[in-house]
């Protein structure tokens, strides 16, 4: 039985295989026919705003929940029938900080090591780079650590048994920019160790750090590809509009007929036109100047993942209003 499974494992390199998985909570459909595959050794990103269904998908893959329909395989094992074996092979870091706040850093680590039937020393080389950063605080209670430290500790705990697949559900939410960058550096190192990583994030700027990404919204996958190719697939030209007095202009511009979409992005607005005729940007500039805005600047700009995300949503007729936009951009 076990031997067979191993053989299966050898001839397919997909470590995570998700086939038309659906899940509803009462009337709310959290996932709708979600399919994707993660190859061995990949750093795979699941990108989508809060409420897109990322956590539900993680819980199904980590055998914590059963899908309503569809099937999921992790490391060649079925998520329903072989759930115990899967639990031996994966590392999981849930979105919520899930360590014991009243135990010290060291006690947490030792506890999770025992939980997985191993010890801190056994796989020390794997977590060394991460652990040395929190080692000075090893007697401090986990509840008193900073967000970045907590996240490193949680990662250590998830890695302590050298899992073959690592599931990280929004690991960088609520963590400062420097720690986020460091964290992605650690993921790159783990990938080099041969660990397959599925990571979800609402931060669009983190998407480009993944090998491949799946964009997810309202329980449906919008697109799957490498970040580079997703950006290349952006249709039309995107313009960045700069002027003073940020607050009011987005709404004014969106009222114009020839504007396809317009979203605030950092210091400027990203605007795409319904028809990419050469004169449209000039029209917009003149129009803004006529409206009394000063220092107006309209120039083409390379789209980022977020722009692609918005475009994919608009293609499906979904609209995100500026006010309730929940996508997060880094700083």
């Amino acid at each position, binding site marked *: 039985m076990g031997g067979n499974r191993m053989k299966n494992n050898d001839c397919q390199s997909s470590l995570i295989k998700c086939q038309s998985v659906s899940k509803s909570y009462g009337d709310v459909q959290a996932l709708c026919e979600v399919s994707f595959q993660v190859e061995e050794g990949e750093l795979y990103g699941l990108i989508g705003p809060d409420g897109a269904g990322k956590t539900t998908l993680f*819980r199904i893959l*980590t055998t914590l929940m059963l899908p309503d329909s569809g099937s999921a395989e992790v490391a060649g094992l079925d998520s329903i029938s072989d759930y115990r074996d899967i639990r031996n092979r994966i590392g999981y870091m849930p979105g919520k900080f899930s360590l014991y706040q009243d135990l010290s850093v060291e006690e947490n680590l030792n506890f999770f090591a025992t939980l997985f039937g191993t010890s801190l020393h056994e796989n020390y080389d794997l977590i060394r780079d991460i652990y040395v950063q929190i080692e000075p605080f090893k007697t401090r209670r986990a509840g008193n650590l900073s967000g970045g430290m907590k996240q490193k500790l949680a990662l250590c705990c998830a890695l302590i048994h050298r899992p073959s697949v690592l599931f990280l559900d929004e690991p960088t939410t609520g963590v400062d920019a420097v720690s986020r960058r460091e964290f992605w550096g650690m993921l790159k190192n783990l990938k080099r160790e041969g660990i397959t990583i599925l990571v979800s994030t609402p931060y669009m700027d983190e998407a480009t750090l993944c090998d491949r990404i799946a964009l997810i919204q309202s329980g449906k996958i919008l697109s799957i590809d490498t970040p580079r190719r997703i950006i290349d697939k952006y249709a039309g030209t995107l313009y960045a509009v700069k002027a003073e007095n940020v607050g009011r202009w987005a709404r004014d511009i969106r009222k114009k007929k020839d504007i396809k979409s317009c979203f605030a992005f950092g210091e400027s607005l990203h605007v795409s036109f319904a028809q990419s005729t050469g004169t449209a940007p000039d029209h917009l500039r003149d129009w803004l100047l006529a409206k009394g805005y000063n220092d107006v600047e309209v120039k083409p700009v390379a789209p980022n993942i977020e722009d692609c995300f918005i475009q994919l949503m608009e293609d499906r007729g979904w609209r995100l209003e500026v006010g309730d936009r929940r996508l997060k951009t880094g700083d």
Partner: protein
Amino acid sequence: MRKKLKIKSAIAANRNTQFLAFVRKEFRHMFRDRKTLLILFGLPVVQILLFGFALTNEIKDSRIVICDYAKDEASRRIIERFAANNHFVVEESLKSHLQIEDAFQEGRIKLAVIFPANFLSDLHHLHQAQVQLIADASDPNTANILKGYATNILMDYQKELSMDSPLPYQIGSEMRMLYNPQLKGAVNFVPGVMSLILMLICVMMTSVSIVREKEYGTMEVLLVSPVNPLLLILSKAVPYLFLSLVNLTVIVVLSVTLLEVPVNGSLILLFLESTLFIITALSLGLLISNLVKTQQAAILFSLIGLMVPTILFTGFMFPIENMPVVLQWFANVIPSRWYYVIIKSVMIKGAGIQAVWKETVVLLLMTGFLLFISFRNFKTRLEA
């Protein structure tokens, strides 16, 4: 074959170290939560002291008034006896019975004793005299008890009188109050407090500590680990079993030294039966933790859903025999009702296991049932 055995024993050894690690973790949780720990250890002490000295159903120092129209030797002797009795305090002597009503309405007194004129001469010449007792029956139990005390005083005096001239027929009743000759309330409530405290601490603390893992998200990680979560849950029971036994010891020591309630039976049997009851309560806590999602719900469930029935239906506040049949049935599913009977028998009556084996079997069955239900309902996944 040998290799297989080796692996098996290695797994078993591993499981043991895991279990120990879990128990250690639970003790850490317990000792680091100082406030809760203080409450857990303070609660039994406060309860014993409260029930022992403040809340008691013995009636002492009831204020009474006396209205003496006779003012003869007999009435004076009886009044002296009332004054000397520690159940009564003579508040004042009234000149007229018309003042009695006022004294009752002001709530100053519980009982009035009225001697008619010619009390002694009636007694001598008619061989019969009357004393009127008026009691405040807005609290019927107290009124009844005070009536009893007063009648006793009058009877004693009558006996003393008849020493010289014995009555032709006389039935003397000789009362002996078994197990509690001084009629101390403590004898009744110490087992009650024990049932209440053990029930409360075990049920609430187990359910809270398991639900806390759900609430903090650590349960998610535990479930995704290869460890059988039941092992972890069982390890949660250990510290609370330990804590409950410490509490039990404190209660027994306090009641023996402070309240002078002795342990008449076997101390070992007392602790064994208590351990059984603690395990019953722990499994009830486990069941509750399966049903609720937040610590608050767990606390509410244990407090309101269990404390009230425990107080009402254990039998130390209200005798179960006097309840309507339906409530008696209900009382039978409350574990503390059986434990209370056991403890009363062992601790107060000095009975052995042969006297309480039926109750013990009931507790055993209850524990088995609760464990079975909660293990069956234990979810190896998160509920949707």
